[in-house]
């Protein structure tokens, strides 16, 4: 099942790219960050040290709550990373 996100109406329409979040394809506009793709998919980003679900907080790379695994690399700050076609994102686990 796919989902879409788009930029605000101020911009020229961007290309559409597909990433997967926990195996589920998500279609996003070019320029969308991984954090937004995860938010849009509706899953949390990570589990805290005591197992609480956590989502992004600051949106600017300083809180580290948005960490997800991208293409096998864990602890990526997803709010600072733009989606690329074919990215495999694992979140909330």
């Amino acid at each position, binding site marked *: 099942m796919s989902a879409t996100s788009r930029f605000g*109406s101020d911009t020229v329409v961007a290309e559409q790219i597909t990433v997967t979040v926990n195996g589920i394809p998500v279609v996003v506009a070019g320029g969308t960050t991984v954090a937004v793709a995860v938010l849009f998919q509706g899953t949390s980003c990570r589990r805290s040290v005591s197992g609480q679900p956590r989502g992004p907080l600051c949106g600017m790379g300083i809180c580290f709550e948005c960490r997800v695994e991208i293409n096998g690399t864990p602890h990526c700050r997803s709010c600072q990373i733009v989606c690329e076609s074919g990215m495999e994102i694992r979140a909330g686990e």
Partner: protein
Amino acid sequence: MAAATCAAESGLHVGMVDDNPGIGGQIWRGDTINSAKEAKHWAQRLGAAKVSVVCGTRVFDHPETDILLAERGNDVCELKYRKLVLATGARERFLPFPGWTLPNVMGAGGLQAFVKSGLPIEGKRVVIAGTGPLLLAVAAYLRHHQANVLMVCEQQSWTSLVRFGVELLRQPQKIRQAMSLRSALAGIPFVPNCWPTEALGRDSLERVVIRRNGKTATIVCDYLACGFHLVPNTEIAELLACEIRNGYVHVDEFQQTSRADVFCAGEPTGIGGLDLSIAEGQIAGFAVAGNKSAAKKLCKARGKMKRFAGVLDKTFTLRTELRSLPSQTTIVCRCEDVDYSRLSRHTSWRAAKLDTRCGMGPCQGRVCGPATRFLFGWSPDSVRPPIFPTNLANLGALSSQSITKHCEVTGGCA
């Protein structure tokens, strides 16, 4: 951007390094760099001035004079410089309250940043809360993107806000901004003396409890955008041993720090908003290039804006009731899941850190530091490298001389 442009236009060879995926900092994040008029102006000038730009690059160490180390993806970059201009901006102050760690409780600027980075917000119910003019800017932005902004809760009192409004009358540009904000926000309840006391939901936010004039109310919503004004990002300046006064990087009239080769502009020198940052950036850019006459021309305008910054500071102080918001089990350090009861046993940042690991997690105190400073009056330790979590492989890529330095500073790296 302003500093890099003016320095390059004055003849210097300039490189600009940004941690974010694109240029423009927070205010021009994502699609805004292409849409906001002033953003486009500076982006064009930056390009025409032939400034070398690297994004997605995060400074973590300063092993020797004139070398900064930065991480970019999985690689480490060595940045050699003769002069530096720091424009590291500010971050939101977050205060803990029950439920603040639920997904979809975000910063006010935080939610705005996600919308700027592609998050669809049309029809979503948003409560904005906290303190500071950022709340109104975020409300206007979200409304413009068809969010259903239910209310803006400002913890400060009507009296303080009215006084602030009177000060605004002295600054014509601020009046214009205020009037356009007023029309952008028509119909959205703006509620002073009001703050969130609890966020509720099972796996993510479902409703917010707010307190207003002694009474509570529960609001069903999709997002809580909550931030308590801004704190300066002074970590790199501290790493470089620049003088810090009252929490801000101390600079002279030319934005020069206590180090002759380091300049600083914008929020790290005092929270004052976009216009002041651009003025200071230009002054720093001209001054670092030795173009003092061009720098001097901007000093008067900066002075006016600096006075506004002082008013901002005085207006949006935090009320004491906010210190009682966390319950005993409210998480204060989000990285290490340290709750209020464990922290309140201690009398200093250092003691709390050593006992609970508060401040030792990935954020290195960027979130819990300002929170504990407000809750307990603690002052965090000095900054030590790496100032951001860094791949072990990148630490290992340093020259042998630097590796020795690191082992001495951190007490042994594996």
